[in-house]
């Protein structure tokens, strides 16, 4: 009997090892069209689609966990999730406290203004009310341009609402997100415009962040990402969310 139990436990353990590993990805689903919440409260967008494709190609299971942006990096070392898939730009500052996958997307910072506003270049932003989501590269850009007057919001959507309500002159965020609000959003596309893109000193890429030293997760993600790019799946997902441009 004892032997039977023991062997049963062994089999069970083996089975669980053989089973596909599950990686939990944290996403702040308030960043359309990269990560957003649909009518069924599901996290959808370019990011989730890419993660699922990577998981399929990389031979692991992926699970998306909707997580508030402010503090999303704090959960990584705590082990609340294995990776962050939330349009995280790879920066030197962030590299000090986490590891990044290969880049999966290039972004520039876009400046959203009210339709008809006289803001055409970075110099026009001086002394203006500029807002962005807290802890994003958009906020860092705002801070560099207008200093401590830069206003940080919990979500980019709140900053956009303040822009539409006339309390801000400009909002800085990833170009994909800026274009989504200014060009395709039914609520805002008529009143907001994408003024210009900030020319970066060096190209800015998005990557999946993992806990520092978590080589296993990084390997799985990179392997899957490579396969997804090679198979043309990446272009398909890109086309789905960004059309032909």
């Amino acid at each position, binding site marked *: 009997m004892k032997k039977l139990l023991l062997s049963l436990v062994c089999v069970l353990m083996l089975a669980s090892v053989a089973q596909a590993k599950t990686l939990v990805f944290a996403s702040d689903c308030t960043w359309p069209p990269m990560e957003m919440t649909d009518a069924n409260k599901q996290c959808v967008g370019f990011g989730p689609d890419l993660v699922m494709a990577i998981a399929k190609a990389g031979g692991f299971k992926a699970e998306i966990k909707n997580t508030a942006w402010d503090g999303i990096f704090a959960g990584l070392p705590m082990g609340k999730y294995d990776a962050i898939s939330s349009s995280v730009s790879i920066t030197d*500052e962030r590299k000090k406290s986490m590891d990044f996958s290969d880049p999966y997307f290039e972004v520039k910072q876009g400046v959203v203004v009210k339709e008809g506003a006289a803001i055409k270049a970075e110099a026009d932003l001086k002394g203006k009310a500029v807002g962005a989501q807290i*802890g994003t590269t958009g*906020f860092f850009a705002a801070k560099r341009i207008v200093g401590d007057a830069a*206003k940080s919001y919990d979500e980019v959507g709140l900053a956009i609402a303040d822009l539409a309500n006339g*309390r801000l002159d400009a909002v800085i965020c990833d170009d994909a997100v800026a274009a989504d609000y200014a060009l395709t959003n039914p609520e805002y596309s008529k009143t907001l415009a994408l003024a210009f893109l900030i020319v970066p000193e060096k190209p800015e890429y998005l990557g999946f962040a993992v806990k520092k030293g978590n080589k296993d997760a990084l390997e799985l993600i990179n392997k899957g990402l490579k396969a997804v790019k090679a198979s043309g799946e990446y272009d398909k997902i890109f086309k789905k969310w960004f059309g032909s441009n």
Partner: protein
Amino acid sequence: MPDKQEVRIDVSDGAAIPRKRDIGLFSAWWISLIGALGCIAYLCLAKPEPYLDILKFLPDGILVTFEVTILSILLALFLGLITGLGRISKNRTINLIASTYVEVVRGIPLLVQLFYIYFALGQVFSNLPNPADVAESMAAWPGIIVYVVVGVVGFLKDMPPLVAAVTAMGVCYGAYMGEVFRAGIESIDKGQTEAARSLGFNRRQTMFLVILPQAWRTILPPVGNEFIALLKDSSLVSILAVADLLRRGREFASVTFSYFEAYTMVALIYLVITLILSKGVSAMETRLNYYVRD
């Protein structure tokens, strides 16, 4: 004349106000204050990076916190006085309006009120017509009315974030303050009113010259307490991107990822501020002979 009445309004959401017997070095107040200041000093000296950097990053946030708190309490006092008078008014309509205001505001969480006044009403106000157009369409009206309407429309349309935040906080605390005023006014013996009225004071004179000056003694300590509660609740305005103490702390943490360090400093600074204020309130109580018992 009945015996001197003992009245105490207890509002419990402020900081604990030290009792008179809690004197000496080993009161909870001293332990907390010296502990908090000691922690700040030790952390800044022992680990200047990042603690000293955080301390240098926060001061303008502390100023904004005080700005929001003081402006809100002034608005709340004004609304509270009107509401308190309305609640004891014999005029049924005024009474009903004041009571409804208190009921509605007390039934909605402050955070929801902040969102409502800032984002919901903000959207409504931003859709108002341009002040210039309003002036044009009202050309037939008397000048002074046009002036007022255009001014109000212009103000609502471009309401600065700080004003919106202060309005939300003030409206919310005005309701609580109304209850404080009502209780304070009702604490004054009826004989005072009767005496004043029989001396020929009219109702308004009785209220403002006889009742309210005496009611202040009962009202002030809970007002001080509400001030402390409001200062703590003012951390909620950080959700409206108002750069207060908490928002500055979050901004620091979001760049450096030193969440523990940043929020430790923010918590300690809030603690030091409320401890000092609560001592101030208790000193005020003592001066007002609040606890004097014959």
